[in-house]
């Protein structure tokens, strides 16, 4: 028998360490070649680690949530024959953003619902079989009905002798819409505390937010924009679009306006390495689009927005959002932005205070479009108004520059033809 050591693989991009987010095996488990052993996360991408050998797990070198250096031993596997060492091969093709289910600590303060069996004081041999009475008490016919109906009988309270669940109990349970029966007194105190370990994507988000807010002195500037003409144009363009063109939202217009403005105001399209004291102004405009996924916030990146037309921008935003939500976005699609757009538009809200996507220096937040009365000099007229809440790194963007930048965007969006005029 030999021993095989699997080391944390080099997951690329010069990453020196990765966070362990999932174990697919535990000590003592038999593993087969190519079986997925673990998942590690770097830079918002999850990488699965397959087993290079067949054997039995002897030792696991990290717990979920731990950060492991590249080439550090990750696990040991007992194998038949000669042992060895190997750096695990990351499954490069399956770089995914995955929803990492945090392990939920069992709450100890659940109110006791079942009468506890009294345990004799002398130790007794524990048989592997589940105690009979811990299963819901019901006749085979009731159990069959429950199985057919997908009902967990543990949720049904029995009114029969010894708490037996009758057909009537099942009928009543179904009549209530198969919800667990509320406590008999109606309102009840709840004392449960659910502890959720912050791992994976949630931990990344948490770290990034702390970094951004602790290092970057934010200045947030909110301006309202009359988008009535933009909305008219958008409606016309959508009504006459070709079948293969993605329906336009406000976003692609804003992206094109950003590109045009950045041409004149390169200060906002930059990354600031404050340790080195270097601001990098980028010629390329890679626009991050903050996107809500089941696992949390991710920022897929529309690369080279300066080289994309409005329809192209629209299509790319839709594609990336979908990829991020389904977890199929590639690693390079989730990093490398130079400026970010965040939109809570559909949810409403008058203004937001966006947090800059470190190490960028600007973020543009879109608020909801609402029809408001606007004084045109002689009367109130209904206009479609939208607020733009933008934050800037005040170390490198002065308030004057910030205001100029936003006012320029405002001008473009209020007279949208300007967006399309060659400069």
């Amino acid at each position, binding site marked *: 028998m030999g021993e095989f050591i699997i080391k944390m693989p080099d997951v690329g991009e010069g990453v020196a360490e990765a966070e362990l987010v999932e174990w697919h095996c535990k000590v003592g488990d038999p593993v*087969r070649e190519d079986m997925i052993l673990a998942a590690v996360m770097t830079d918002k991408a999850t990488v699965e680690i397959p087993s290079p050998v067949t054997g039995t797990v002897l030792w696991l070198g990290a717990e979920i949530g731990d950060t492991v250096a590249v080439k550090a031993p990750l696990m040991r596997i007992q194998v038949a024959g000669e042992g060895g060492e190997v750096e695990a091969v990351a499954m490069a093709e399956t770089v995914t953003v995955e929803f990492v289910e945090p392990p939920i600590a069992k709450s100890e303060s659940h109110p006791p619902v079942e009468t506890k*069996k009294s345990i004799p004081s002398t130790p*007794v041999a524990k*048989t592997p079989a589940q105690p009979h*009475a811990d299963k819901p008490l019901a006749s085979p016919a009731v159990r069959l009905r429950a199985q057919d109906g997908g009902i967990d009988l543990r949720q049904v309270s029995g009114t029969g002798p010894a708490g037996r669940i009758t057909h009537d109990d099942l009928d009543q349970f179904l009549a209530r819409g198969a919800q667990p029966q509320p406590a008999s007194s109606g309102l009840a105190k709840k004392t449960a505390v659910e502890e959720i370990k912050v791992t994976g994507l949630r931990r990344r988000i948490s770290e990034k937010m702390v970094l951004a807010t602790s290092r970057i002195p934010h200045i947030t500037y909110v301006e309202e924009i009359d988008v009535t003409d933009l909305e008219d144009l958008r409606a016309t363009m959508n009504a006459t679009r070709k079948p293969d063109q993605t329906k336009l939202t406000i976003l692609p217009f804003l992206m094109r306006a950003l590109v045009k403005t950045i041409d004149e105001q390169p200060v906002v399209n930059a990354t600031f390495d404050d340790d080195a004291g270097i601001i990098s102004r980028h010629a390329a405009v890679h626009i991050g689009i903050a996107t809500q996924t089941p696992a949390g916030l991710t920022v897929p990146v529309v690369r080279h927005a300066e080289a994309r037309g409005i329809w192209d921008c629209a299509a790319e935003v839709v594609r990336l959002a979908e990829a991020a939500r389904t977890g199929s976005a590639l690693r390079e699609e989730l990093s490398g932005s130079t400026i970010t757009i965040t939109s809570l538009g559909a949810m409403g809200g008058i203004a937001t205070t966006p947090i800059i996507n470190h190490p960028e220096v600007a973020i543009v937040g879109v608020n909801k479009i609402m029809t408001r009365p606007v004084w045109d000099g002689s009367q109130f007229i209904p206009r479609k108004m939208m607020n733009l809440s933008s934050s800037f790194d005040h170390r490198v963007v002065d308030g004057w520059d910030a205001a100029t930048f936003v006012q320029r965007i405002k001008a473009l969006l209020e007279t949208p033809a300007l967006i399309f005029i060659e400069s």
Partner: protein
Amino acid sequence: MKEIVCKLLVIGAGPGGYICAIRAGQLGIDTVIVEAVKAGGTCLNIGCIPSKALIHAAEEFEKVSHMAAAKSPLGISVETPKLDLAKTIAWKDGIVGRLNSGVLGLLRKARVKIVHGRAKFRDGKTVEVETETGTQVIRAETIVIATGSEPVELPFLPFGGPVISSTEALSLKTVPQKLVVVGGGYIGLELGTAFAKLGSKVTVVEATSQILPQYDAELVKPVAKRLADLGIRVLTGAKAKGLSGNTLLIETAEGAEEQLAADKILVTVGRKPRTEGWGLDELDLDRAGKFLRIDDRCRTSMRGVHAIGDITGEPMLAHRAMAQGEMVAEIVAGKKRTWDKRCIPAVCFTDPEIVTAGLSPDEARAQGYEIRVGQFPFSANGRAMTMLSEDGFVRIVARADSNLVLGIQAVGSGVSELSSAFALAIEMGARLEDIAATIHAHPTRSEGFQEAALKALGHALHI
């Protein structure tokens, strides 16, 4: 030969396999069943059914012999009876044959395709069957492994010559004068008792300190008494050592060596899952000890491969396999099913019979239950008296807090037929009051069940 492609393939037509196939056929699933020997498996061909036939014949013969010896208090006397074992065996074979063709008929009625031959896995979806006419390849979406079990062989007492397994014991042409049974479990005692009644001089060699080690001493006592009455010599704590000619060498509980002369040596030291010869290695399925590991839907570690019956573990009983087979067929048909049985009753056809369902008092206590136990002896039961068999009792185990019935055991003549009442009570979640308040017909042995419940409640009427 042309490949067969089907939705469900069942390997082994024992009680688990054929029930699975019939139910699948009823549900409209395109099903194929492969059997290497005969439909019905161990149970029907060389197990439950033929042994019960032999036991019945032996019982009848013993009754008549008893009368011939003018010992019957019933006032019946007869001439000394004679036995033609070959004829008995032929009668037994007739029953087996009828059931064989019955099973095949049922399979055909359910439109199940039957393939005769030995199956071997090629991969998780493909099986090769060695048939009389060549190799038949069968591809299936779902495969059910129901290959059963076989008698355990002792390395120093290999089967052959005078050493026989239960299979040969059920087809002997003459009654052995001296029979040594190695292994005092239920199979050894059932057959040993039968041969003693047919006239053999029987010795039982059991390695543990008690015959029928899976039962508690109270349940075993009436059986041990009857064995003694039949002149069966029971050596507990004794180990078989080896064979020299027709003599079995044993080491007794006291450590002394003894030689037991025997015409036949019946080895019944247990059964093992049949895990060889059908390509298990190709599949690399997870095991639980010697058995295949299954979950509560009888799924193995490989997708699309189920396992049922003796191959999946204890208790190795036909009715467990049948229930598993039925469940798997329904799962394959898309129904939501999980194994939610509360008990698997077990019957030991010794003299008297033992039946158990659910937990024994010891098992219940070991699981942390506070219990009350009610026991009613057949000596206080009118029907038992009229049948000349008052040995034994019914015992009921219930939770002390809710009177929920946890287990029921009985030992006594004919109590196997009470197994349905016992199992039903547990599956229905009966309390002691339910059984006590149910009218049990008089005069029957089943009254003992009601009285045991009353006894546990503290107000038995007939003791």
